[in-house]
């Protein structure tokens, strides 16, 4: 009996903590939107974050996008070859990249690189009282720290996704046409035939949403860090796990709505 009550107690606590967390993230989003348009705009901080989230994530996104496109071409080639439909490899790669893999993998990569850094940086600022110092100096930390990170992520993740989509298709072309000898005309023709602009746009909209999610969660976890170095470590891990899972869950719902 005691064990059942303990289990229920723990379950209740977890549910409460989850609900509290979701509420906290929502409140942070609302405050961010409130501060976003209040002048003066912190353009310098936004550009600095764009460089960190976007430019410095380019290399990892280039690698991920290219190799994903390549392996996708390789796998689908073996499948399509069974019923002599190798020509569909190009459109399969392009559709998969633009609709799903480009935005999701870019979101996950940026989460690992920049989302974790946001949680760690803000967490360190929290435990070393730098965030309190901002409040004391009559400077709102949401405007100074959260708004630039979120704006930068919402703009840069779609741009990185566009790079990933493009290089994924190029990677697929290289494996399909150059290595596996699929007819170039059929490969490209099927891409033109089956991939529509909406596939690309919707993928980019998804990416912007993932950018919002990963930065919001990274900032929330960093902002609410407690304890010293251990707290910062925990906040970083939790931010990466929560943001990654949220991206995958949100991806399902966005796909269901968009396509």
């Amino acid at each position, binding site marked *: 009996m005691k064990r059942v009550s303990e289990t229920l107690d723990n379950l209740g606590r977890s549910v409460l903590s989850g609900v509290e967390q979701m509420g906290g993230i929502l409140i942070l989003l609302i405050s961010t939107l409130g501060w976003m348009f209040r002048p003066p705009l912190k353009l310098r901080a936004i550009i600095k974050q764009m460089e960190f989230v976007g430019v410095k994530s380019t290399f990892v996104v280039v690698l991920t996008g290219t190799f994903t496109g390549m392996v996708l071409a390789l796998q689908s080639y073996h499948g399509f070859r069974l019923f002599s439909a190798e020509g569909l490899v190009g459109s399969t790669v392009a559709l998969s990249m633009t609709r799903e893999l480009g935005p999701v993998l870019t979101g996950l990569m940026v989460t690992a690189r920049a989302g974790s850094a946001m949680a760690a940086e803000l967490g*360190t600022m929290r435990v*070393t*009282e*730098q965030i309190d*110092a901002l*409040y*004391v*100096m*009559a*400077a709102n930390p949401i405007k100074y720290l959260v708004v630039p990170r979120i704006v930068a992520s919402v703009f840069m993740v779609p741009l990185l996704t566009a790079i990933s989509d493009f290089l994924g298709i190029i990677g697929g072309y290289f494996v399909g046409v150059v290595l596996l000898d699929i007819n170039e005309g059929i490969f490209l023709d099927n891409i033109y035939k089956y991939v529509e602009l909406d596939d690309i746009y919707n993928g980019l909209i998804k990416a912007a949403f993932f950018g919002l999610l990963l930065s919001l969660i990274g900032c929330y976890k960093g902002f609410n860090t407690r304890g010293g170095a251990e707290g910062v470590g925990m906040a970083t891990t939790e931010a990466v796990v929560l943001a990654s899972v949220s991206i995958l869950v949100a991806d399902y719902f966005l796909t269901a709505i968009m396509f």
Partner: protein
Amino acid sequence: MIRIVDLHKSFQSQKVLDGVNLEIEDGKTTVIIGRSGGGKSVLLKHIIGLMKPDSGQILVDDVDIAKLDDRGLNEVRKKFGMLFQEGALFDSMNVAENVGFTLREHTKMKEEEIRVAVAEKLKAVGLTGIEEKMPSELSGGMRKRVALARAIAINPEIVLFDEPTTGLDPIMLEAINQLIIDTQKNFNLTCIVISHDIESIFKVGHKIAMLYEGKIIEYGTPEEIKKSPNPVLQQFLTGSIEGPIHIM
């Protein structure tokens, strides 16, 4: 003038402030002493509006800051400067950017004027030529001095010091004490210092208040405090393990 009236604050079931009443005199240094974890920093955070009380008032020039919204709080905070325990300098900014932060944010000063003001404040805390250094390149004592320069950059009326001498060697400790005394005198500041370093409190304080079990149990000049018969205060000042303060 800062007046704290019947201030209460609890964290879950733990009462940290249990009816604090205190008046801080203008143009003087008031030191708040008490045991570690006894609520001194919590009291300081209430004075600057970083925490909201469960009940009670914090009156800054007759305005109850506990009732202010963010905008109102920000206006009141412009009267304050604060030196945090570890300095809390912004890691991503150099010394000049740290010290000039409030000037850039809250004044219409030109860059050249800010540069001059930063150099002046750094000189006031005994530092020159370190404007381009990053906080990570500074020693503990230098970091505190830069943080003090940042705290007084906007010429505040009130400066709060959260354990300013913790973690310093005896020479640097003495230097920081002297700096607090000089800064208070030169800029005619109202200072509130949180400390449990007995030697320092008698050096820098015009008035001393002892916080114990959530209340101010003694308040007076250093002489009055030294002569107080209060056994809790005397045990704290002598550092004796025997007495009414339970160690465990």
